[in-house]
Protein backbone atom coordinates (compact mmCIF):
# COMPACT_ATOMS: atom_id res chain seq x y z
CA UNK A 1 0.00 0.00 0.00
CA UNK A 2 2.86 2.33 0.93
CA UNK A 3 4.70 1.63 -2.31
CA UNK A 4 1.47 2.05 -4.27
CA UNK A 5 1.00 5.49 -2.73
CA UNK A 6 4.63 6.38 -3.38
CA UNK A 7 4.71 5.11 -6.93
CA UNK A 8 1.39 6.59 -7.99
CA UNK A 9 2.57 10.06 -6.98
CA UNK A 10 5.89 9.68 -8.72
CA UNK A 11 4.44 8.33 -11.92
CA UNK A 12 1.47 10.71 -12.03
CA UNK A 13 3.46 13.81 -11.08
CA UNK A 14 0.85 14.93 -8.56
CA UNK A 15 0.49 14.62 -4.79
CA UNK A 16 -2.05 12.13 -3.40
CA UNK A 17 -5.72 12.93 -3.52
CA UNK A 18 -6.98 13.28 0.05
CA UNK A 19 -3.73 12.65 1.93
CA UNK A 20 -5.64 12.44 5.21
CA UNK A 21 -7.56 9.47 3.87
CA UNK A 22 -4.24 7.87 2.99
CA UNK A 23 -3.11 8.34 6.60
CA UNK A 24 -6.36 6.76 7.69
CA UNK A 25 -5.59 3.73 5.48
CA UNK A 26 -2.17 3.44 7.05
CA UNK A 27 -3.34 3.53 10.67
CA UNK A 28 -6.52 1.56 10.10
CA UNK A 29 -4.54 -1.18 8.39
CA UNK A 30 -2.10 -1.45 11.32
CA UNK A 31 -5.00 -1.59 13.76
CA UNK A 32 -6.79 -4.30 11.76
CA UNK A 33 -3.60 -6.36 11.58
CA UNK A 34 -2.91 -5.97 15.29
CA UNK A 35 -6.38 -6.76 16.59
CA UNK A 36 -6.97 -9.26 13.82
CA UNK A 37 -3.91 -11.17 14.97
CA UNK A 38 -5.14 -11.10 18.55
CA UNK A 39 -8.59 -12.28 17.50
CA UNK A 40 -7.10 -15.30 15.75
CA UNK A 41 -5.19 -16.18 18.91
CA UNK A 42 -8.48 -15.93 20.77
CA UNK A 43 -9.97 -18.52 18.44
CA UNK A 44 -12.10 -16.19 16.31
CA UNK A 45 -11.70 -17.62 12.85
CA UNK A 46 -13.63 -18.43 9.72
CA UNK A 47 -10.97 -21.13 9.00
CA UNK A 48 -10.72 -20.03 5.37
CA UNK A 49 -7.11 -19.76 4.34
CA UNK A 50 -5.95 -16.18 3.76
CA UNK A 51 -9.42 -15.05 4.91
CA UNK A 52 -9.32 -16.30 8.50
CA UNK A 53 -10.45 -13.06 10.13
CA UNK A 54 -14.06 -13.01 11.32
CA UNK A 55 -16.77 -10.74 9.92
CA UNK A 56 -16.14 -7.50 11.93
CA UNK A 57 -12.60 -7.43 10.53
CA UNK A 58 -13.83 -8.31 7.05
CA UNK A 59 -16.08 -5.25 7.12
CA UNK A 60 -13.27 -3.05 8.44
CA UNK A 61 -10.99 -4.28 5.66
CA UNK A 62 -13.67 -3.60 3.05
CA UNK A 63 -14.08 0.00 4.26
CA UNK A 64 -10.38 0.64 4.31
CA UNK A 65 -9.91 -1.04 0.95
CA UNK A 66 -12.47 1.29 -0.60
CA UNK A 67 -10.55 4.26 0.88
CA UNK A 68 -7.36 2.84 -0.60
CA UNK A 69 -9.06 2.67 -3.99
CA UNK A 70 -10.44 6.20 -3.71
CA UNK A 71 -7.03 7.69 -2.91
CA UNK A 72 -5.25 5.63 -5.53
CA UNK A 73 -7.63 6.08 -8.46
CA UNK A 74 -8.35 9.66 -7.40
CA UNK A 75 -4.66 10.42 -7.69
CA UNK A 76 -4.51 8.77 -11.09
CA UNK A 77 -7.53 10.75 -12.23
CA UNK A 78 -5.73 14.04 -11.68
CA UNK A 79 -2.37 12.97 -13.06
CA UNK A 80 -0.50 15.39 -15.28
CA UNK A 81 1.12 12.64 -17.33
CA UNK A 82 -1.16 11.22 -19.95
CA UNK A 83 -0.09 7.60 -19.83
CA UNK A 84 -0.81 5.54 -16.73
CA UNK A 85 2.42 3.82 -15.82
CA UNK A 86 2.59 -0.06 -15.77
CA UNK A 87 3.11 -0.23 -12.02
CA UNK A 88 -0.21 1.47 -11.56
CA UNK A 89 -1.99 -1.11 -13.68
CA UNK A 90 -0.78 -3.78 -11.29
CA UNK A 91 -1.67 -1.76 -8.19
CA UNK A 92 -5.04 -0.97 -9.75
CA UNK A 93 -5.58 -4.66 -10.57
CA UNK A 94 -4.71 -5.51 -7.00
CA UNK A 95 -7.27 -3.07 -5.60
CA UNK A 96 -10.10 -4.09 -7.92
CA UNK A 97 -9.66 -7.85 -7.96
CA UNK A 98 -9.04 -8.20 -4.22
CA UNK A 99 -12.14 -6.14 -3.51
CA UNK A 100 -14.18 -8.53 -5.68
CA UNK A 101 -12.67 -11.68 -4.15
CA UNK A 102 -12.80 -10.44 -0.57
CA UNK A 103 -16.45 -9.48 -0.67
CA UNK A 104 -17.69 -12.61 -2.43
CA UNK A 105 -15.67 -15.09 -0.39
CA UNK A 106 -16.41 -13.59 3.01
CA UNK A 107 -20.17 -13.47 2.59
CA UNK A 108 -21.52 -14.98 5.79
CA UNK A 109 -24.37 -14.63 8.27
CA UNK A 110 -23.08 -13.46 11.65
CA UNK A 111 -24.21 -15.23 14.82
CA UNK A 112 -22.26 -13.13 17.30
CA UNK A 113 -19.30 -10.76 17.23
CA UNK A 114 -16.84 -13.65 16.98
CA UNK A 115 -18.81 -16.16 14.90
CA UNK A 116 -20.47 -16.39 11.53
CA UNK A 117 -21.58 -19.15 9.16
CA UNK A 118 -20.45 -19.08 5.56
CA UNK A 119 -23.05 -18.40 2.91
CA UNK A 120 -21.68 -21.38 0.99
CA UNK A 121 -21.38 -24.95 2.23
CA UNK A 122 -19.25 -27.98 1.50
CA UNK A 123 -17.95 -28.39 -2.04
CA UNK A 124 -19.31 -25.02 -3.18
CA UNK A 125 -17.65 -23.29 -0.24
CA UNK A 126 -14.40 -25.02 -1.18
CA UNK A 127 -14.50 -23.80 -4.79
CA UNK A 128 -15.34 -20.22 -3.79
CA UNK A 129 -12.65 -20.22 -1.11
CA UNK A 130 -9.91 -21.34 -3.48
CA UNK A 131 -11.07 -18.97 -6.19
CA UNK A 132 -10.41 -16.38 -3.48
CA UNK A 133 -7.42 -17.99 -1.78
CA UNK A 134 -5.33 -18.54 -4.85
CA UNK A 135 -6.04 -15.13 -6.33
CA UNK A 136 -5.84 -13.05 -3.18
CA UNK A 137 -2.31 -14.39 -2.98
CA UNK A 138 -1.94 -13.87 -6.71
CA UNK A 139 -3.01 -10.29 -6.89
CA UNK A 140 -1.60 -9.13 -3.57
CA UNK A 141 1.68 -11.02 -3.45
CA UNK A 142 2.27 -11.19 -7.17
CA UNK A 143 0.34 -8.27 -8.65
CA UNK A 144 1.20 -5.76 -5.96
CA UNK A 145 4.83 -6.79 -5.86
CA UNK A 146 5.13 -6.73 -9.65
CA UNK A 147 3.90 -3.15 -9.40
CA UNK A 148 6.82 -2.48 -7.08
CA UNK A 149 9.19 -4.29 -9.42
CA UNK A 150 8.12 -2.30 -12.48
CA UNK A 151 8.75 1.00 -10.71
CA UNK A 152 11.79 0.37 -8.56
CA UNK A 153 13.77 -1.88 -10.86
CA UNK A 154 14.13 0.65 -13.72
CA UNK A 155 14.64 3.38 -11.13
CA UNK A 156 17.50 1.59 -9.43
CA UNK A 157 19.18 0.15 -12.48
CA UNK A 158 18.85 3.33 -14.52
CA UNK A 159 17.52 1.30 -17.44
CA UNK A 160 14.06 1.47 -19.01
CA UNK A 161 11.95 -1.70 -18.91
CA UNK A 162 13.44 -4.08 -21.46
CA UNK A 163 10.23 -4.64 -23.44
CA UNK A 164 7.16 -2.49 -23.02
CA UNK A 165 5.15 -4.70 -25.36
CA UNK A 166 5.98 -7.77 -23.29
CA UNK A 167 4.85 -6.04 -20.10
CA UNK A 168 1.52 -5.15 -21.70
CA UNK A 169 0.89 -8.70 -22.90
CA UNK A 170 2.05 -10.21 -19.62
CA UNK A 171 -0.17 -7.91 -17.57
CA UNK A 172 -3.38 -8.84 -19.36
CA UNK A 173 -2.48 -12.52 -19.59
CA UNK A 174 -1.77 -12.47 -15.87
CA UNK A 175 -5.05 -10.73 -15.00
CA UNK A 176 -7.02 -13.12 -17.18
CA UNK A 177 -5.46 -16.48 -16.41
CA UNK A 178 -4.64 -16.22 -12.69
CA UNK A 179 -8.31 -16.35 -11.71
CA UNK A 180 -8.87 -19.82 -13.16
CA UNK A 181 -6.16 -21.66 -11.29
CA UNK A 182 -7.65 -21.79 -7.77
CA UNK A 183 -9.22 -25.27 -7.79
CA UNK A 184 -5.77 -26.85 -8.22
CA UNK A 185 -5.83 -26.64 -4.41
CA UNK A 186 -8.66 -29.18 -4.57
CA UNK A 187 -7.28 -31.87 -6.89
CA UNK A 188 -8.92 -35.25 -6.21
CA UNK A 189 -11.20 -33.59 -3.66
CA UNK A 190 -15.00 -33.77 -3.81
CA UNK A 191 -15.49 -31.18 -6.54
CA UNK A 192 -16.37 -31.77 -10.21
CA UNK A 193 -13.59 -33.23 -12.35
CA UNK A 194 -13.88 -30.61 -15.09
CA UNK A 195 -13.19 -27.85 -12.56
CA UNK A 196 -9.98 -29.57 -11.49
CA UNK A 197 -8.77 -30.21 -15.04
CA UNK A 198 -9.57 -26.68 -16.16
CA UNK A 199 -7.67 -25.29 -13.18
CA UNK A 200 -4.71 -27.51 -14.00
CA UNK A 201 -4.63 -26.37 -17.64
CA UNK A 202 -4.90 -22.70 -16.69
CA UNK A 203 -2.20 -23.11 -14.05
CA UNK A 204 0.17 -24.38 -16.74
CA UNK A 205 -0.75 -21.47 -19.00
CA UNK A 206 -0.01 -19.10 -16.13
CA UNK A 207 3.64 -20.03 -16.41
CA UNK A 208 3.86 -17.93 -19.59
CA UNK A 209 2.98 -14.47 -18.21
CA UNK A 210 4.93 -15.17 -15.02
CA UNK A 211 8.12 -15.99 -16.85
CA UNK A 212 7.57 -13.24 -19.38
CA UNK A 213 7.57 -10.77 -16.49
CA UNK A 214 10.59 -12.36 -14.88
CA UNK A 215 12.55 -12.28 -18.12
CA UNK A 216 11.51 -8.68 -18.66
CA UNK A 217 12.87 -7.80 -15.23
CA UNK A 218 16.11 -9.72 -15.55
CA UNK A 219 16.80 -8.27 -19.01
CA UNK A 220 16.24 -4.78 -17.63
CA UNK A 221 18.93 -5.30 -15.01
CA UNK A 222 21.32 -7.25 -17.20
CA UNK A 223 22.74 -4.10 -18.75
CA UNK A 224 23.84 -2.60 -15.46
CA UNK A 225 25.91 -5.29 -13.80
CA UNK A 226 28.35 -2.80 -12.29
CA UNK A 227 25.67 -1.27 -10.14
CA UNK A 228 24.53 -4.67 -8.97
CA UNK A 229 27.76 -5.35 -7.16
CA UNK A 230 27.67 -2.46 -4.70
CA UNK A 231 23.96 -1.81 -4.49
CA UNK A 232 22.20 -3.96 -1.87
CA UNK A 233 18.77 -2.74 -2.91
CA UNK A 234 19.19 -3.83 -6.51
CA UNK A 235 20.84 -7.07 -5.45
CA UNK A 236 17.80 -8.01 -3.37
CA UNK A 237 15.46 -7.24 -6.22
CA UNK A 238 17.38 -9.35 -8.71
CA UNK A 239 17.44 -12.23 -6.24
CA UNK A 240 13.71 -11.83 -5.69
CA UNK A 241 13.16 -12.16 -9.44
CA UNK A 242 15.11 -15.41 -9.44
CA UNK A 243 12.89 -16.79 -6.69
CA UNK A 244 9.84 -15.47 -8.50
CA UNK A 245 10.90 -17.52 -11.50
CA UNK A 246 11.48 -20.57 -9.33
CA UNK A 247 8.16 -20.34 -7.50
CA UNK A 248 6.13 -19.65 -10.64
CA UNK A 249 7.70 -22.68 -12.30
CA UNK A 250 7.11 -24.90 -9.30
CA UNK A 251 3.49 -23.78 -8.93
CA UNK A 252 2.26 -25.00 -12.32
CA UNK A 253 4.20 -28.26 -11.84
CA UNK A 254 2.44 -28.86 -8.54
CA UNK A 255 -0.87 -28.06 -10.22
CA UNK A 256 -0.44 -31.09 -12.47
CA UNK A 257 -2.75 -33.70 -11.03
CA UNK A 258 -0.22 -36.54 -11.07
CA UNK A 259 2.34 -34.41 -9.20
CA UNK A 260 -0.33 -33.09 -6.86
CA UNK A 261 -1.18 -36.64 -5.77
CA UNK A 262 2.17 -36.62 -3.98
CA UNK A 263 2.45 -32.97 -2.99
CA UNK A 264 -1.08 -32.31 -1.67
CA UNK A 265 -1.47 -32.19 2.14
CA UNK A 266 2.35 -32.26 2.60
CA UNK A 267 5.10 -29.82 3.57
CA UNK A 268 5.96 -29.45 -0.10
CA UNK A 269 3.13 -26.92 -0.32
CA UNK A 270 4.58 -25.08 2.66
CA UNK A 271 7.98 -24.99 0.94
CA UNK A 272 6.40 -23.63 -2.24
CA UNK A 273 4.65 -20.84 -0.35
CA UNK A 274 7.88 -19.91 1.38
CA UNK A 275 9.93 -19.75 -1.80
CA UNK A 276 7.36 -17.17 -2.85
CA UNK A 277 6.91 -15.41 0.49
CA UNK A 278 10.54 -15.37 1.63
CA UNK A 279 12.34 -15.54 -1.69
CA UNK A 280 10.19 -13.23 -3.76
CA UNK A 281 8.02 -11.03 -1.52
CA UNK A 282 10.39 -10.52 1.39
CA UNK A 283 13.46 -10.00 -0.82
CA UNK A 284 11.84 -7.42 -3.05
CA UNK A 285 10.49 -5.65 0.03
CA UNK A 286 13.99 -5.55 1.52
CA UNK A 287 15.29 -4.15 -1.75
CA UNK A 288 12.67 -1.42 -1.72
CA UNK A 289 13.42 -0.67 1.95
CA UNK A 290 17.12 -0.23 1.24
CA UNK A 291 16.24 2.07 -1.65
CA UNK A 292 13.44 4.10 -0.09
CA UNK A 293 14.36 4.56 3.55
CA UNK A 294 17.63 6.44 2.97
CA UNK A 295 15.88 8.57 0.33
CA UNK A 296 12.89 9.40 2.49
CA UNK A 297 15.09 10.08 5.49
CA UNK A 298 17.49 12.14 3.39
CA UNK A 299 20.52 10.26 4.68
CA UNK A 300 23.07 7.73 3.57
CA UNK A 301 22.46 4.09 4.43
CA UNK A 302 24.03 3.46 7.84
CA UNK A 303 26.03 0.40 6.86
CA UNK A 304 26.55 -1.19 3.46
CA UNK A 305 28.35 -4.08 5.08
CA UNK A 306 25.39 -5.00 7.31
CA UNK A 307 23.13 -4.88 4.27
CA UNK A 308 25.42 -7.31 2.47
CA UNK A 309 25.45 -9.65 5.45
CA UNK A 310 21.65 -9.43 5.50
CA UNK A 311 21.62 -10.41 1.82
CA UNK A 312 23.55 -13.63 2.46
CA UNK A 313 21.56 -14.47 5.60
CA UNK A 314 18.29 -14.01 3.73
CA UNK A 315 19.47 -16.10 0.79
CA UNK A 316 20.85 -18.97 2.84
CA UNK A 317 17.87 -18.94 5.21
CA UNK A 318 15.41 -19.15 2.34
CA UNK A 319 17.27 -21.90 0.51
CA UNK A 320 17.68 -24.02 3.64
CA UNK A 321 14.00 -23.55 4.45
CA UNK A 322 12.84 -24.60 1.01
CA UNK A 323 15.19 -27.59 0.92
CA UNK A 324 13.95 -28.80 4.30
CA UNK A 325 10.33 -28.51 3.22
CA UNK A 326 10.94 -30.18 -0.14
CA UNK A 327 12.65 -33.13 1.49
CA UNK A 328 9.96 -33.40 4.17
CA UNK A 329 7.10 -32.94 1.70
CA UNK A 330 8.27 -35.43 -0.90
CA UNK A 331 8.97 -38.03 1.81
CA UNK A 332 5.54 -37.56 3.33
CA UNK A 333 3.80 -37.73 -0.02
CA UNK A 334 5.57 -40.86 -1.22
CA UNK A 335 5.58 -42.74 2.09
CA UNK A 336 1.87 -42.11 2.71
CA UNK A 337 1.08 -43.58 -0.71
CA UNK A 338 3.53 -46.46 -0.44
CA UNK A 339 1.97 -49.97 -0.63
CA UNK A 340 3.62 -53.38 -0.45
CA UNK A 341 3.15 -56.11 -3.05
CA UNK A 342 0.02 -57.34 -1.27
CA UNK A 343 -1.51 -53.88 -1.50
CA UNK A 344 -1.10 -53.13 2.19
CA UNK A 345 0.20 -49.82 3.55
CA UNK A 346 3.93 -49.86 4.18
CA UNK A 347 4.00 -47.14 6.83
CA UNK A 348 1.67 -45.94 9.58
CA UNK A 349 1.02 -42.22 9.86
CA UNK A 350 3.17 -42.08 12.98
CA UNK A 351 6.12 -43.80 11.24
CA UNK A 352 6.19 -41.04 8.65
CA UNK A 353 5.69 -38.27 11.19
CA UNK A 354 8.50 -39.50 13.39
CA UNK A 355 10.87 -39.29 10.41
CA UNK A 356 10.23 -35.58 10.02
CA UNK A 357 12.28 -34.48 13.03
CA UNK A 358 15.55 -33.60 11.22
CA UNK A 359 13.69 -31.65 8.54
CA UNK A 360 11.73 -29.66 11.09
CA UNK A 361 14.97 -28.96 12.97
CA UNK A 362 16.53 -27.65 9.78
CA UNK A 363 13.41 -25.59 9.14
CA UNK A 364 13.74 -23.95 12.54
CA UNK A 365 17.40 -23.11 11.96
CA UNK A 366 16.64 -21.75 8.49
CA UNK A 367 13.87 -19.57 9.89
CA UNK A 368 16.18 -18.20 12.59
CA UNK A 369 18.89 -17.42 10.03
CA UNK A 370 16.37 -15.56 7.90
CA UNK A 371 14.96 -13.72 10.91
CA UNK A 372 18.39 -12.64 12.12
CA UNK A 373 18.94 -10.99 8.72
CA UNK A 374 15.71 -9.08 9.13
CA UNK A 375 16.76 -7.94 12.60
CA UNK A 376 20.04 -6.66 11.15
CA UNK A 377 18.11 -4.73 8.52
CA UNK A 378 15.79 -3.21 11.11
CA UNK A 379 18.80 -2.03 13.08
CA UNK A 380 20.49 -0.73 9.93
CA UNK A 381 17.42 1.22 8.80
CA UNK A 382 16.75 2.51 12.30
CA UNK A 383 20.28 3.88 12.50
CA UNK A 384 19.86 5.34 9.02
CA UNK A 385 16.74 7.23 10.06
CA UNK A 386 18.39 8.43 13.27
CA UNK A 387 21.05 9.87 11.04
CA UNK A 388 24.10 8.70 12.86
CA UNK A 389 26.47 8.45 9.96
CA UNK A 390 29.17 5.90 10.30
CA UNK A 391 32.15 7.81 11.49
CA UNK A 392 35.20 5.91 10.54
CA UNK A 393 37.70 6.42 13.32
CA UNK A 394 41.00 4.81 12.60
CA UNK A 395 43.30 4.59 15.58
CA UNK A 396 46.51 6.37 14.72
CA UNK A 397 49.43 4.07 14.24
CA UNK A 398 51.95 3.64 16.97
CA UNK A 399 54.62 5.36 14.95
CA UNK A 400 52.60 8.58 14.60
CA UNK A 401 51.67 8.53 18.21
CA UNK A 402 55.22 8.07 19.37
CA UNK A 403 56.30 10.65 16.80
CA UNK A 404 53.94 13.20 18.32
CA UNK A 405 55.22 12.46 21.76
CA UNK A 406 58.74 12.78 20.65
Amino acid sequence: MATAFYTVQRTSHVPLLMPKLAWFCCYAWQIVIFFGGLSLLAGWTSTKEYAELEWPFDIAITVLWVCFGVVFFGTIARRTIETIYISNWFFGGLIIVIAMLHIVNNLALPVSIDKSYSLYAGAQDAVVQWWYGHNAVGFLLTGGFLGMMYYFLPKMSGQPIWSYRLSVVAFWAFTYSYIWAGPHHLHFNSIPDWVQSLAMAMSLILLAPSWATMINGIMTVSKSSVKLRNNPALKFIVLSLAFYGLATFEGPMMAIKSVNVVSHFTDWTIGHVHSGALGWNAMITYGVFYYLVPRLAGRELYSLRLANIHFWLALSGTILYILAMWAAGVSQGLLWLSLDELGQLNYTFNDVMAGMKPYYGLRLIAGLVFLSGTVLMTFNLFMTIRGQQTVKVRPPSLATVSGVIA
Partner: protein
Amino acid sequence: MSGMSLHKKLEKNAGLLIFGILFVSSIGGLVQVLPVLFQESLSTASANTVPYSAAQLQGRDIYIREGCHVCHSQQVRPLLAEVKRYGPYSRAGELVYDRPFMWGSKRTGPDLHRVGGKYSDAWQRIHLLDPRSVVNDSIMPAYPWLAGKPASAIGDIQKKMRVLVRLGHPYSEQEIEAAPAALEGLTELDALVAYLQVLGTSAEEFKGEEGHH
Protein backbone atom coordinates in the same frame (compact mmCIF):
# COMPACT_ATOMS: atom_id res chain seq x y z
CA MET B 1 -6.62 -1.14 -35.02
CA SER B 2 -3.66 -3.13 -33.80
CA GLY B 3 -3.44 -4.48 -30.28
CA MET B 4 -0.92 -1.92 -29.19
CA SER B 5 -2.93 1.06 -30.38
CA LEU B 6 -5.98 -0.30 -28.59
CA HIS B 7 -3.84 -0.47 -25.51
CA LYS B 8 -2.73 3.15 -25.98
CA LYS B 9 -6.35 4.10 -25.30
CA LEU B 10 -6.62 1.89 -22.24
CA GLU B 11 -3.47 3.17 -20.63
CA LYS B 12 -4.53 6.78 -21.03
CA ASN B 13 -8.02 6.43 -19.60
CA ALA B 14 -8.32 5.36 -15.96
CA GLY B 15 -12.02 4.49 -16.33
CA LEU B 16 -11.39 2.21 -19.27
CA LEU B 17 -8.47 0.59 -17.46
CA ILE B 18 -10.60 -0.13 -14.38
CA PHE B 19 -13.33 -1.57 -16.55
CA GLY B 20 -10.82 -3.63 -18.52
CA ILE B 21 -9.32 -5.16 -15.38
CA LEU B 22 -12.72 -5.91 -13.89
CA PHE B 23 -13.95 -7.50 -17.12
CA VAL B 24 -10.87 -9.60 -17.82
CA SER B 25 -10.49 -10.80 -14.24
CA SER B 26 -14.11 -11.81 -13.77
CA ILE B 27 -14.34 -14.14 -16.78
CA GLY B 28 -12.64 -16.97 -14.91
CA GLY B 29 -15.03 -16.73 -11.98
CA LEU B 30 -18.10 -16.52 -14.19
CA VAL B 31 -17.19 -19.56 -16.27
CA GLN B 32 -15.64 -21.74 -13.59
CA VAL B 33 -17.13 -20.82 -10.21
CA LEU B 34 -20.66 -19.67 -10.98
CA PRO B 35 -21.79 -23.00 -12.55
CA VAL B 36 -20.51 -24.82 -9.47
CA LEU B 37 -22.70 -22.64 -7.26
CA PHE B 38 -25.73 -23.69 -9.27
CA GLN B 39 -24.87 -27.38 -9.53
CA GLU B 40 -27.55 -29.02 -7.42
CA SER B 41 -25.73 -32.31 -6.93
CA LEU B 42 -23.10 -30.43 -4.92
CA SER B 43 -25.64 -28.98 -2.50
CA THR B 44 -27.91 -32.02 -2.17
CA ALA B 45 -27.42 -34.12 0.94
CA SER B 46 -26.66 -37.79 0.32
CA ALA B 47 -28.76 -40.44 2.09
CA ASN B 48 -28.19 -40.50 5.89
CA THR B 49 -26.61 -37.06 5.85
CA VAL B 50 -28.36 -34.85 8.39
CA PRO B 51 -27.46 -31.50 9.96
CA TYR B 52 -25.28 -31.58 13.08
CA SER B 53 -27.08 -31.99 16.41
CA ALA B 54 -26.79 -29.26 19.04
CA ALA B 55 -23.84 -30.93 20.78
CA GLN B 56 -22.10 -31.78 17.48
CA LEU B 57 -22.52 -28.23 16.22
CA GLN B 58 -21.00 -26.80 19.40
CA GLY B 59 -18.26 -29.41 19.08
CA ARG B 60 -17.52 -28.30 15.53
CA ASP B 61 -17.24 -24.68 16.63
CA ILE B 62 -14.86 -25.74 19.42
CA TYR B 63 -12.84 -27.69 16.83
CA ILE B 64 -12.57 -24.45 14.84
CA ARG B 65 -11.77 -22.28 17.87
CA GLU B 66 -8.95 -24.59 18.93
CA GLY B 67 -7.55 -24.60 15.39
CA CYS B 68 -7.78 -28.40 14.87
CA HIS B 69 -8.39 -27.75 11.15
CA VAL B 70 -4.90 -26.32 10.78
CA CYS B 71 -3.24 -29.73 11.29
CA HIS B 72 -6.04 -32.14 10.35
CA SER B 73 -7.64 -32.35 6.92
CA GLN B 74 -11.16 -33.73 6.42
CA GLN B 75 -10.98 -35.00 2.89
CA VAL B 76 -10.13 -38.55 1.84
CA ARG B 77 -9.02 -38.61 -1.79
CA PRO B 78 -10.04 -41.46 -4.11
CA LEU B 79 -6.58 -43.06 -4.03
CA LEU B 80 -5.95 -46.66 -3.05
CA ALA B 81 -3.55 -45.79 -0.23
CA GLU B 82 -5.87 -43.14 1.20
CA VAL B 83 -8.91 -45.42 1.17
CA LYS B 84 -6.79 -48.10 2.89
CA ARG B 85 -5.57 -45.67 5.52
CA TYR B 86 -8.67 -43.65 6.27
CA GLY B 87 -11.75 -45.31 4.76
CA PRO B 88 -14.16 -44.56 1.90
CA TYR B 89 -13.26 -41.44 -0.03
CA SER B 90 -15.18 -38.22 0.65
CA ARG B 91 -18.29 -37.34 -1.36
CA ALA B 92 -19.69 -33.85 -1.86
CA GLY B 93 -23.16 -34.95 -0.72
CA GLU B 94 -21.89 -35.81 2.76
CA LEU B 95 -20.46 -32.34 3.29
CA VAL B 96 -23.41 -30.09 2.47
CA TYR B 97 -23.95 -29.04 6.10
CA ASP B 98 -20.33 -27.98 6.56
CA ARG B 99 -20.19 -24.20 6.92
CA PRO B 100 -17.38 -23.55 6.35
CA PHE B 101 -15.93 -26.60 4.58
CA MET B 102 -12.88 -27.93 6.42
CA TRP B 103 -11.04 -30.09 3.93
CA GLY B 104 -7.72 -28.50 4.81
CA SER B 105 -4.37 -28.13 3.01
CA LYS B 106 -1.90 -29.83 5.32
CA ARG B 107 -1.78 -33.10 7.20
CA THR B 108 0.49 -32.51 10.15
CA GLY B 109 -1.78 -35.02 11.84
CA PRO B 110 -3.88 -37.67 10.05
CA ASP B 111 -7.07 -36.97 8.11
CA LEU B 112 -10.19 -36.97 10.26
CA HIS B 113 -13.07 -37.23 7.81
CA ARG B 114 -13.64 -40.92 8.60
CA VAL B 115 -12.58 -40.77 12.24
CA GLY B 116 -16.17 -41.12 13.52
CA GLY B 117 -16.62 -44.48 15.25
CA LYS B 118 -13.00 -45.50 14.74
CA TYR B 119 -12.17 -45.10 18.44
CA SER B 120 -14.34 -45.25 21.57
CA ASP B 121 -15.60 -42.08 23.28
CA ALA B 122 -13.32 -42.87 26.21
CA TRP B 123 -10.26 -43.09 23.94
CA GLN B 124 -11.10 -39.75 22.31
CA ARG B 125 -11.52 -38.13 25.72
CA ILE B 126 -8.18 -39.40 27.04
CA HIS B 127 -6.46 -38.56 23.77
CA LEU B 128 -7.65 -34.95 23.83
CA LEU B 129 -6.64 -34.46 27.46
CA ASP B 130 -3.28 -36.21 27.17
CA PRO B 131 -2.40 -37.40 23.65
CA ARG B 132 0.85 -39.11 24.60
CA SER B 133 -0.83 -41.41 27.08
CA VAL B 134 -2.46 -43.28 24.17
CA VAL B 135 -0.25 -42.44 21.16
CA ASN B 136 3.39 -42.72 22.14
CA ASP B 137 5.09 -40.38 19.71
CA SER B 138 2.19 -37.99 19.09
CA ILE B 139 3.10 -34.32 18.61
CA MET B 140 -0.45 -33.09 19.23
CA PRO B 141 -0.92 -30.53 22.02
CA ALA B 142 -3.11 -31.43 25.02
CA TYR B 143 -6.43 -29.64 25.51
CA PRO B 144 -7.07 -30.01 29.26
CA TRP B 145 -9.25 -26.90 29.57
CA LEU B 146 -12.02 -28.47 27.46
CA ALA B 147 -13.11 -30.63 30.37
CA GLY B 148 -13.73 -27.63 32.62
CA LYS B 149 -16.10 -25.59 30.46
CA PRO B 150 -19.78 -26.17 29.74
CA ALA B 151 -20.66 -26.90 26.09
CA SER B 152 -23.08 -23.97 26.08
CA ALA B 153 -20.19 -21.51 26.59
CA ILE B 154 -19.25 -21.38 22.92
CA GLY B 155 -22.19 -19.30 21.79
CA ASP B 156 -25.98 -19.26 21.83
CA ILE B 157 -26.95 -22.60 20.28
CA GLN B 158 -30.49 -21.52 19.39
CA LYS B 159 -29.26 -18.44 17.61
CA LYS B 160 -26.75 -20.53 15.69
CA MET B 161 -29.40 -23.01 14.60
CA ARG B 162 -31.73 -20.20 13.53
CA VAL B 163 -28.98 -18.67 11.39
CA LEU B 164 -28.35 -22.08 9.83
CA VAL B 165 -32.07 -22.50 9.12
CA ARG B 166 -31.92 -19.24 7.17
CA LEU B 167 -29.06 -20.76 5.19
CA GLY B 168 -31.18 -23.82 4.41
CA HIS B 169 -30.36 -26.37 7.11
CA PRO B 170 -33.55 -28.32 7.93
CA TYR B 171 -33.76 -27.90 11.73
CA SER B 172 -37.31 -28.13 13.05
CA GLU B 173 -38.63 -25.61 15.59
CA GLN B 174 -38.82 -28.46 18.14
CA GLU B 175 -35.17 -29.31 17.67
CA ILE B 176 -34.21 -25.69 18.21
CA GLU B 177 -36.41 -25.49 21.32
CA ALA B 178 -34.85 -28.65 22.71
CA ALA B 179 -31.26 -27.63 21.93
CA PRO B 180 -30.33 -25.93 25.26
CA ALA B 181 -31.64 -28.92 27.19
CA ALA B 182 -29.60 -31.25 24.98
CA LEU B 183 -26.45 -29.38 26.00
CA GLU B 184 -27.27 -29.50 29.69
CA GLY B 185 -24.53 -31.13 31.71
CA LEU B 186 -22.20 -31.51 28.72
CA THR B 187 -18.69 -30.08 28.77
CA GLU B 188 -16.82 -28.72 25.76
CA LEU B 189 -14.92 -31.99 25.75
CA ASP B 190 -18.19 -33.94 25.42
CA ALA B 191 -19.33 -31.72 22.57
CA LEU B 192 -16.03 -32.06 20.70
CA VAL B 193 -16.10 -35.86 21.09
CA ALA B 194 -19.71 -35.89 19.85
CA TYR B 195 -18.58 -34.02 16.74
CA LEU B 196 -15.56 -36.27 16.12
CA GLN B 197 -17.72 -39.38 16.49
CA VAL B 198 -20.23 -38.27 13.85
CA LEU B 199 -17.58 -37.28 11.30
CA GLY B 200 -17.90 -39.25 8.08
CA THR B 201 -20.47 -41.67 9.47
CA SER B 202 -23.25 -40.84 7.04
CA ALA B 203 -21.55 -42.89 4.34
CA GLU B 204 -23.13 -46.20 5.41
CA GLU B 205 -23.75 -47.12 1.79
CA PHE B 206 -20.02 -47.01 1.05
CA LYS B 207 -18.92 -49.16 3.98
CA GLY B 208 -17.07 -52.31 3.06
CA GLU B 209 -15.73 -50.61 -0.01
CA GLU B 210 -12.18 -51.05 1.24
CA GLY B 211 -12.42 -54.80 0.74
CA HIS B 212 -13.06 -54.50 -2.99
CA HIS B 213 -9.71 -52.97 -3.86
